[in-house]
């Protein structure tokens, strides 16, 4: 893409520090001027880091994710991936949508392989579709259609699809929001396992405080609209984490309490 050719590195030192994503002074107001979505967002995400973003409804979390995915533009400030300003969708970024967003007329395997057959001749590494399906426990369901799968299985296929181009960054927009609590806990375990095996950089948006603490190296708390980053909290709980183990870890209650307090102060949740 031409836009990528002319994009310059905004801060060469960033790469040295290991920041894969660097956001500075990001502002976004929607076209009709009525909604001030994001205000002065500053956020760095290290290479291989798992960041969860929590915030009240409508605080612009999804907008932030869409900007990083190259699906929305922004007004001022910078958002850079590996030192290059983000100007559009990139092969280095995989997106996991809410509610799986699989195409019902394609089989599970065709859905997962979709990124390999569109988008032109972009050179890059590709994962083996069958190996991904195997890892996600979908080996025997490749020839099935999405509506034959449970919600959890559909979202696992959605994650496989986001991984198939072997992107460096995985952006996940409330991926498990539509699942029941038990399935959700299991999906969190699965995601941790996949992430530990692949070491992608992940930004995951969630409403669930427990999910954020379970998954994240760092939890980013955003304010009500216009969205700002009001706190970043490291999660000092060793991995691999288990659903039982995490609650009994001494650091968990204080973290959960602090996040809940920050969100309550925003008048939500």
């Amino acid at each position, binding site marked *: 893409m031409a836009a990528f050719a002319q994009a310059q590195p905004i801060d060469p030192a960033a790469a040295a520090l290991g920041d894969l994503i660097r956001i500075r002074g990001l502002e976004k107001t929607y076209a009709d001027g009525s909604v001030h979505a994001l205000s002065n967002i500053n956020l760095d995400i290290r290479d291989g880091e798992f960041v969860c973003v929590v915030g009240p409804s409508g605080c612009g979390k999804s907008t932030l994710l869409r900007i990083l995915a190259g*699906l929305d533009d922004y007004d001022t400030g910078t958002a850079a991936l590996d030192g290059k300003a983000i100007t559009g969708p990139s092969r280095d970024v995989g997106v996991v*949508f*809410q509610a799986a967003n699989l195409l019902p*007329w394609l089989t599970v395997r065709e859905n997962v392989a*979709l990124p390999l057959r569109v988008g032109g001749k*972009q050179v890059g590494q590709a994962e083996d579709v069958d190996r991904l399906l195997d890892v996600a426990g979908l080996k025997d369901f490749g020839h099935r*259609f999405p*509506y034959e799968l449970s919600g959890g299985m559909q979202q696992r296929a959605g994650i496989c699809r986001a991984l198939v181009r072997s992107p460096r960054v995985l952006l996940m927009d409330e991926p498990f929001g539509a699942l029941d609590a038990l399935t959700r806990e299991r999906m969190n375990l699965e995601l941790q396992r996949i992430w530990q095996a692949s070491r992608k950089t992940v930004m995951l948006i969630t409403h669930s405080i427990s999910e954020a603490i379970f998954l994240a190296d760092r939890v980013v708390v955003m304010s009500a609209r216009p969205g700002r980053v009001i706190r970043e909290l490291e999660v000092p709980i060793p991995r691999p984490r288990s659903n039982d183990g995490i609650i009994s870890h001494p650091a968990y209650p204080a973290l959960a309490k602090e996040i809940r307090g920050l969100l309550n102060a925003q008048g939500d949740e």
Partner: protein
Amino acid sequence: MSEAKTSVLANVTAIEAAAPKAPAVAGRKRRGKGAGGTVIMVLGLLILFGGWALAVKYLEIPSYILPSPVAVWHALWSGIAVSPSSPLGYYLPLWGTLKNAAIGLAIGSGLGLVLGSLMAESRVIEKLLMPYAFALQSLPKVAIAPLVVIWFGFGDGSKVAISALLAFFPMLINSFTGLRAVEPERIDLMRSLSASRFETYRIVKLPNAAPYIFAGLDMAVVYALLGTIVAEFLGAQQGMGVVITQAQAVTDVAGVFAALVILGAMGILLHGIVRGLEARIVHWGDRGRK
């Protein structure tokens, strides 16, 4: 500006774009009802034909107004129980009518799909063509038939042309509506993959519009048959329209009824074929929608 455009679109959509899924599903459920439903259906038919026969007999309705069911059956049988190449049978005229209707359907619905796609993909083309589509849609299109006969003559050309004209509009409006009805998340997915416009059309928008397109095709099939018959009324060498006008010329009302029975059966058959094709191709049904 944009308000005016959407209101035109809303009007056209309200007029013609058939709701794609729900009625079909309801119909299918109701049909698969087993023995009880069949009994009711047979009873209904018996009452209908019995009442008809009794009315003709005891109300002394003359046969040139309403022939008895037996007379219609005789006329029907005399057209069916002959060699397929006999000029007296239904086979040759039916073949002629179906062939012209099929060619007209292919041309009309094909053009409707192409133009509907172009209008859905391009605001400029939409703004350019929608006023004409709206105007023509409001016109009773069979009224153009005499003009088409002047242009294309009394041969197959005019039959194909009128069929194509009638089949064109339901496909145009339904494919346009269906292609615009795509969920934004699916477009986001394709954008996130840097998919080309054509890839997005082929992989997401077209399958997404399939239920609408089949609903349009369902109407287009009947309209194409209607168009051929109307053109045949205006003058033709052969065809079911000719069978009807010839029977009418000698006040053979039973013959007219018999031809109508054949055409009705064709309509039901073609409708069944379209529904069957839809069930095979759109196998995900309304599970594709949220």
